[in-house]
């Protein structure tokens, strides 16, 4: 008889994460909605910012706007993707199977939310290409290597924030409504296009607890000049704390849903 142990080895964990990420990413790239959210919507918002910045003449470079609009796309993809993921699995009747699978649910959910934020890389690429082609924005990066590090760290940070969102939405039936609500406030509060210094002081502590604040800082400082290492580190640290919060939260909500036999009903 062969050994059918389901113990989690690092190799198995890596395999679960890689497979779930790849499947989810394939599924998302075939969605018209995600094409809109990750490519067209950021291009429209980047264009609005470009025209406003040009007309006003007070704001910084257009590359500043392109990067901000790109990260807005990453946040939208994460928000709608991660917020809706439990609901989609529920609608497809696969949620119970995923929860009952030998792999811990957090290990299944994490790559799925990471895939949603990974989709956001299209946003950065789209807004930079749009700015270069139609607005003649020079794409000269101050620290290309750090830029190449800042992007995946930001995607990871937002993916883990998405995991927290997904875990809290397990018991909430109308996740899409919350997602609709949370898009603009996070764009605003994390300084993606509007500097935090223009916002009321009480926004500061909220902003610093959100990965997009540090992610955009890391990306901007690596692209426009500055020292992005601290911001990259903060994004990574916040990502790790999101993972811990999400692991507890998923276990708690999963147990509640099992106890109430309401996993597919909530």
């Amino acid at each position, binding site marked *: 008889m062969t050994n059918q142990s389901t113990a989690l080895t690092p190799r198995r964990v890596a395999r679960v994460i890689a497979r779930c990420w790849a499947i989810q990413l394939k599924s998302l790239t075939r969605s018209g909605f995600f094409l809109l959210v990750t490519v067209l919507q950021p291009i429209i918002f980047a264009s609005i*910012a470009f025209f406003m910045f040009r007309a006003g003449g007070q704001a910084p470079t257009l590359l500043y706007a392109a990067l901000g609009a790109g990260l807005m796309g990453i946040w939208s993809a994460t928000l709608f993707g991660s917020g809706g993921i439990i609901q989609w699995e529920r609608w497809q009747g696969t949620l119970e199977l995923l929860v009952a699978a030998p792999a811990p649910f957090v290990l299944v959910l994490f790559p799925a939310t990471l895939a949603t934020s990974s989709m956001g890389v299209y946003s950065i690429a789209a807004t930079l290409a749009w700015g270069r082609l139609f607005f003649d924005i020079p794409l000269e990066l101050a620290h290309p290597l750090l830029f190449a590090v800042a992007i995946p760290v930001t995607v990871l940070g937002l993916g883990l924030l998405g995991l927290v969102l997904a875990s809290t939405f397990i018991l909430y039936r109308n996740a899409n*409504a919350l997602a609709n609500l949370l898009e603009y406030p996070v764009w605003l509060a994390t300084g993606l296009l509007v500097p935090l210094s223009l916002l009321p002081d009480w926004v500061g502590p909220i902003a610093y607890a959100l990965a997009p604040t540090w992610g955009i800082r890391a990306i901007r400082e690596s692209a426009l000049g500055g020292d992005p290492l601290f911001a990259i580190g903060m994004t990574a640290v916040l990502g790790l704390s999101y993972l811990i919060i999400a692991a507890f939260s998923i276990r708690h909500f999963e147990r509640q849903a099992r106890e109430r036999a309401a996993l597919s009903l909530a």
Partner: protein
Amino acid sequence: MTMEAMSTVNRGSSLRRDLRLFFVGGLISYRALFNWLHPKIYIPTMLGSPLFQILFFTNLGRFSGVETDSFFVVGNAVQVCAMSSIYGMTMTIANERYFGTLSSLLATPANRFALFLGRAMPPIANGMLVSAFGFAVGIAFLDFRPPASSFGALAVIVLVTVVSCTALGMLLGSIGLRARDVFFASNLMYFLTLLLCGTNVPLETLPGWMQAIGRSLPLTHGIDAARSVAGGAALGDVSGLIRTEFLIGGAYALGAYVLFRVFEIEGRRRASLEAL
């Protein structure tokens, strides 16, 4: 009873039927097909999202130094009616197909004109409410202070603009009777109105082709009129803009009705009414 009298009675009862279809049918279809009616969805989506949209663009306007706060408050307060006019209207028509009720509906002898137009009434009322909320946000949080004498004129302008924008939603809804993913188009249109209709970017700063598209869309002239009135102009001063807004809406409504009928006839002929 003479034939003439019977014909008069039939005409009267037919009118009553059509009016009932217009008002009651429109309301019932809205309750059934508008996905966001429950307060748990309505409040975050129809009120929460516009609230933060207005705050976001006003702050972006302050940062870019392009216009005053009231430019963004008025532009966005009028534009957020599209939450109801575009999304709501699209859902109220296109969801018949997604929910599998389109064939049953079109098998009835109901007057198509009354059936179609009746669906526009609830989104119009809702759009007015969302826009009014948008103006209230400006007054409460952004120190927006239009002259009290402008409230009546603003209400008229918003009504015309909401009607016009709802006509655009009807057009998208009609396309949804045939297209695979009409909500892609309605989302895209909502975002485009932020760029092309002078909502956030002064129209004259856009390239000529964008200005031309913007001027052919609902909202553009309504927003322009609302800004003038909020700045102290009288309703009569912007009557040309209001008329243009209304005519644009009329053209979209006509296009929507023609498409609705064409897709109905085509759907029957090809037995493809509910093909997704």
